[in-house]
């Protein structure tokens, strides 16, 4: 497990990170969200030792992150980087070897990854001749070739077409299934919502919220329900203790102070006629995000 504890960092007198703390647990995908300039990239760079923290610690399996430990991490930086004139397979093999693999293993892993990301046909092309989307896939290979113990990806989905997004999503899920903690940042909140088990929200260099995504969503949800009936649902407005948020003919979304009040609405609806839909509304990540920052 990766533990980030109270890390702070200033650049030229400006505090960019202020006591940021969170965990990335084994086998779980942790989404790291925050506005531009909120400190996501700086945090990731500190975890990887590319930057040093002014204060605070980063530990891996309870111990310090040394060069040897870091070599087993996989990293995909936000600003993508590959040698443009180097051939795809050769480049991934080289990066695998820098991460400590022997040549045979590096070759084997590269072949498997290129196959998985549908790049086998381009193995001997220089990277610069690939489309941006394909270069991005090579970048994913570069982060995974050494079967990392921890995976850190900065905006892994930016610039990908919908098909490529599905491929990369599948790859990340497979890594988590292998027991690897996966930490990734993204602006695309609906993707984060689909993919992540845990969530860290950072705002202005401070951890605004962190923990299991579902419990966070539960914590930030006001008791809100959706009801769809056959006729007009306008009558819900007159039920005492109910506040209607949206009303559109037969569909109504309403907030209640106590969940029993929602049950009372349901009973009335059944008495009035058929009920097509009834259920609690879970707030989207975007809503939570708006609320905490």
């Amino acid at each position, binding site marked *: 497990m990766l533990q980030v504890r109270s890390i702070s960092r200033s650049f030229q007198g400006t505090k960019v990170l202020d006591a940021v703390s969170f965990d990335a647990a084994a086998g779980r995908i942790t989404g790291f969200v925050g506005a531009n300039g909120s400190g996501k990239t700086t945090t990731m760079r500190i975890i990887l030792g*590319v930057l040093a923290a002014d204060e605070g610690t980063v530990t891996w399996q309870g111990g310090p992150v040394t060069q*040897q430990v*870091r*070599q087993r991490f996989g990293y995909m930086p936000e600003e993508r980087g590959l*040698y*443009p004139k180097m051939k795809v397979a050769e480049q991934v093999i080289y*990066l695998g070897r*820098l991460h400590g693999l022997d040549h045979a293993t590096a070759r084997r892993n590269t072949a498997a990854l290129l196959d998985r990301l549908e790049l086998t046909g381009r193995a001997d092309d220089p990277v610069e001749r690939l489309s941006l989307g394909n270069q991005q896939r090579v970048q994913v290979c570069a982060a995974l070739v050494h079967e990392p113990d921890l995976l850190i990806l900065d905006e892994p989905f930016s610039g990908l077409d919908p098909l490529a997004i599905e491929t990369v999503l599948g790859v990340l899920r497979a890594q988590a299934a292998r027991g690897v903690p996966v930490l990734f940042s993204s602006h695309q909140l609906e993707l984060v919502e689909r993919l992540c088990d845990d969530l860290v929200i950072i705002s202005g260099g401070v951890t605004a919220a962190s923990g299991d995504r579902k419990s966070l969503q539960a914590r930030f949800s006001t008791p809100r329900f959706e009801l769809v009936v056959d006729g007009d649902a306008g009558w819900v407005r007159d039920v005492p203790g109910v506040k209607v948020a949206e009303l559109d003919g037969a569909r109504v979304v309403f907030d209640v102070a106590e969940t029993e009040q929602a049950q009372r609405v349901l009973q009335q609806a059944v008495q009035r006629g058929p009920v097509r839909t009834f259920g609690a509304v879970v707030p989207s990540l975007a809503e939570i995000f708006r609320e905490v920052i």
Partner: protein
Amino acid sequence: MSFWQATRLVAHREILVQVRGKGLWITFGFFVVGLFAAAIVPGLAGDDPAPTVAVVGRQAERTVAATDLQPRPATDVAQAQTLVRDGEVDAAVVDDPASTTGLRIIAMTQTPYQVMAALAAAPPVDLLAPDAVSDQVLYLASFGFALIFFIFAISGVAIAQSVMTEKQTRIVEILVATVPVRALLTGKIAAYCLLVFGQVGVLALLTPIALRVGDLGILLTLIGPALGWFVPFFMLGYVLLASMWAVAGALVSRAEDLTSSSTVITILVMVPYLGVTFFQENDLVMTILSYMPFSSAVAMPVRMFAGEPQLWEPFVSLAILAATLTATVMVATRLYTGSLLQTGARVRLRRAWTGAETPLA
């Protein structure tokens, strides 16, 4: 993975990239062709046939017969002049009682120095302490050393380009997160040093062959010792410049900025080349140049070739070079570390220096 394993991987990649590229082979081909040309061409041009002269008069006949000039009898001065005008002969030698030598030379447009020299009576010369090598050979050898150093030192810009490309493409972030920064720097410098030393080694092996082909085998015994000194000086001098080229690359993120960051190095590379070419005859300047770290690589072997310095001198100069190298590599490592992850505009030296204190764990 250890530091040295990482260094070896980095060096291996750099060497592959260079060996597959064109630049290396163009430089190397230039030197091989130049070496053989320098050994063979002077021999071809040197075999000028002796000039032909029209001869008029008894004294003229006698004098010309004693030289290796090719005589061609003429009946009188007028016929001799016609032969000169028609280009049948290079000049005419005729009797002239009015001249102090009793002879007169007739030629078309220019004074025929070769004919004059053949007719002149020079007293014999005894040298008490002859120079080991002629001025001409000294000039050729020093020019050769200076040119080799200059071309290889300038081609060190490839190191700067390689470092800059890693910054420009941002792959440096992955590299720095994976291997120690020092391994990156050491691997790069090691790769280019191996490539250049390999080329110099092959050229050194080809030199005796070229000299023998050009029938200049005798030069080998003269150049040998100077060549022996040139090698260690060249190696240390090259590593010194290589580490500076690496810093020049690390300070910039765009190719356009590379020229400005490498100006100082370009000047330092020009010093030995121009210095040795222009001040070869000036003992004081050559002595100073032979102790200065950047020019000593060329100036000291040239002085050794001319046979001037005391035995201890190259050792002292080599020690100064080694000390400068050590200090430069230490400073360069710090500047490289401090500027590698700073992108955008050109990094100021002061920022690169202080930058090294904070960013890397």
